[in-house]
């Protein structure tokens, strides 16, 4: 970590004032600007978690690349998984502008010190799951991430503009995949409905996280979660509460599901004229406490897969490093 060395106290006050001024004016904070340590840490944590989610998120869909049922769908899925790898890479680069190293972030993922979104701690059991993931999980991601295009940290905001454009395309492709299934044979429709039954609640709950005011866990962790969330809003890292975004997601999906002829697995969904929003069953966080932890088959499996790929590739990365060092030496030798 190469955080700037601490400035004298008077300068620190001036720096903090300048930082707060920039945030208040809606200007972006750039890597060369002074920033509070807490701001830096919060960003590293959030950007890394997002990058890890892109990389881990490649697994449930990547597992279907070899089985995609048409060459068109195979191409679309390849392009999507490729985009996810790309998003992971831009986000790691954005995190690197905060003085951390990509290799250290991956190491933190591989050894459980940092996590990916718990949404992916669910298995993709059928082909329709690739459609449900793209439509619902990516749909939730777009709603979560669209405000991050205006987040206060410049490199993160710029990475997110590119990510969001591509994610929006994934959602359309996912919807299109589901539409094809719904217009197909009864067996195809049944597969589509089953996938939605399994992916709806993980998207609603886990893509947005617990309400900012009452995080899962005991009173202490809840208070802590709420404080972190307030801080993230004050610093302009976050722009909306988790519940606001969750409502926006439900409001977007209900009419889409109706058009597809699919039933969202929540009998409480109905239009509330007064609120101008759809009502839905509040998330039962107890159900998800388990999914949020590390001790489930899929949480372990996702990380074990990443770690195995990384370990299998060690000799390749070592070769690349040795070759780069040697060719750089040659170049330096020529210069010198």
């Amino acid at each position, binding site marked *: 970590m190469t955080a700037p060395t601490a400035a004298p106290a008077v300068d620190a006050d001036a720096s903090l004032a300048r930082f707060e001024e920039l945030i208040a004016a809606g200007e972006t904070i750039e890597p060369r600007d002074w920033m509070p340590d807490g701001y830096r840490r919060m960003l590293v944590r959030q950007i890394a978690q997002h990058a890890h989610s892109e*990389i881990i998120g*490649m*697994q449930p869909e990547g597992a279907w690349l070899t089985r995609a049922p*048409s060459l068109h769908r195979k191409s679309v899925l390849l392009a999507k*998984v490729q985009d996810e790898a790309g998003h992971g890479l831009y986000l790691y680069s954005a995190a690197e502008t905060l003085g951390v190293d990509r290799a250290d972030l991956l190491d933190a993922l591989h050894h459980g010190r940092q996590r990916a979104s718990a949404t992916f701690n669910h298995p993709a059991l059928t082909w329709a799951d690739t459609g449900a993931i793209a439509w619902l999980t990516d749909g939730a991601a777009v709603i979560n991430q669209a405000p991050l295009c205006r987040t206060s940290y410049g490199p993160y905001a710029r990475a997110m503009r590119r990510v969001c454009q591509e994610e929006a395309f994934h959602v359309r492709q996912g919807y299109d995949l589901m539409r094809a299934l719904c217009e197909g044979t009864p067996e*195809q429709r049944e597969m589509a409905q089953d996938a939605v039954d399994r992916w709806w609640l993980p998207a609603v709950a886990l893509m947005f996280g617990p309400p900012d005011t009452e995080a899962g866990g005991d009173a202490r962790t809840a208070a802590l979660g709420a404080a972190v969330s307030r801080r993230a809003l004050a610093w302009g890292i976050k722009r909306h509460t988790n519940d606001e975004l969750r409502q926006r997601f439900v409001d977007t999906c209900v009419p889409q599901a109706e058009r597809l002829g699919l039933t969202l697995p929540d009998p409480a969904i109905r239009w509330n004229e007064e609120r101008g929003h759809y009502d839905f069953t509040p998330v039962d966080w107890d159900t998800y406490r388990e999914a949020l932890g590390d001790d489930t088959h899929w949480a372990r499996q996702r990380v074990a897969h990443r770690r195995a*790929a990384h370990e299998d590739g060690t*000799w390749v990365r070592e070769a690349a490093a040795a*070759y780069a060092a040697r060719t750089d030496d040659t170049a330096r030798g020529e210069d010198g």
Partner: protein
Amino acid sequence: MTTTREAPPRHRAAPAGDADLATLLLRLGDDALVLGQRLCQWITWAPTVDEDLALSNIALDLIGHARVLLTRAGRLDGTGRTEDDLAFTRPERAFTNVLLAELPNGDFAATVARQLAYTHYAVLYYEALAGCADPELAAFGARAAKEVAFHRLHADRWTRTLAGGTATSARRLREGLERVWPYTAELFEEDAVLRRLTASGTVPSPAGVRRAWERAVADVLTGAGLTVPAPAWTATGGRSGLHTEEFGPLLAELQSVHRQFPGGTW
């Protein structure tokens, strides 16, 4: 009133030249499809995230080539089969890809060795197709050659890197090259179909690019301090549908969802 009972419409027989061209396009399409399928198996297992990205990009181009080639093959052979009919409903023996394309991936070095052999061949042969009289095939050849030229850069770069990296990577690459080289001769095989297509001036023969391929891969290998493998045997059979035992599982996986839903639309 008598009802004339006609036999259900059968596909019309394709003219001889079209049938030959369809056979060639099916072979090339199968090569791209099967190699693309093998590369799909790498995704999320590559040594770096950058490589997951690179390999998925290459696989995407290969599937794109397969789609063009299979679509045209199905039109020309008179059966009216679509790209998906050809990819997802033919049995093992009807596939005519070279065995090189279906070889299990092995380690990253073996994949690099296979990519080196295939990409150098494909650029040269697609460039040759770009000069043929058939405008559709010429346009495909020109576009595909440009795309595979990027895959060739990727293979060349990894060949140099693994050869000049560590003792382990150099050894693994040599083993990879020894493993795949017996399967390279099949790329240049010429049979009656190709002889007729060449004699009629329809398309150049892959045999015609063999010398250039040998020179090109020798340049890369010797430049990386390696020797060109001189295999004591060469594999054959793919073009007549005689595959490796590993091909069955590859095809079963490729076709599984499509076959589970008869009459499905995707």
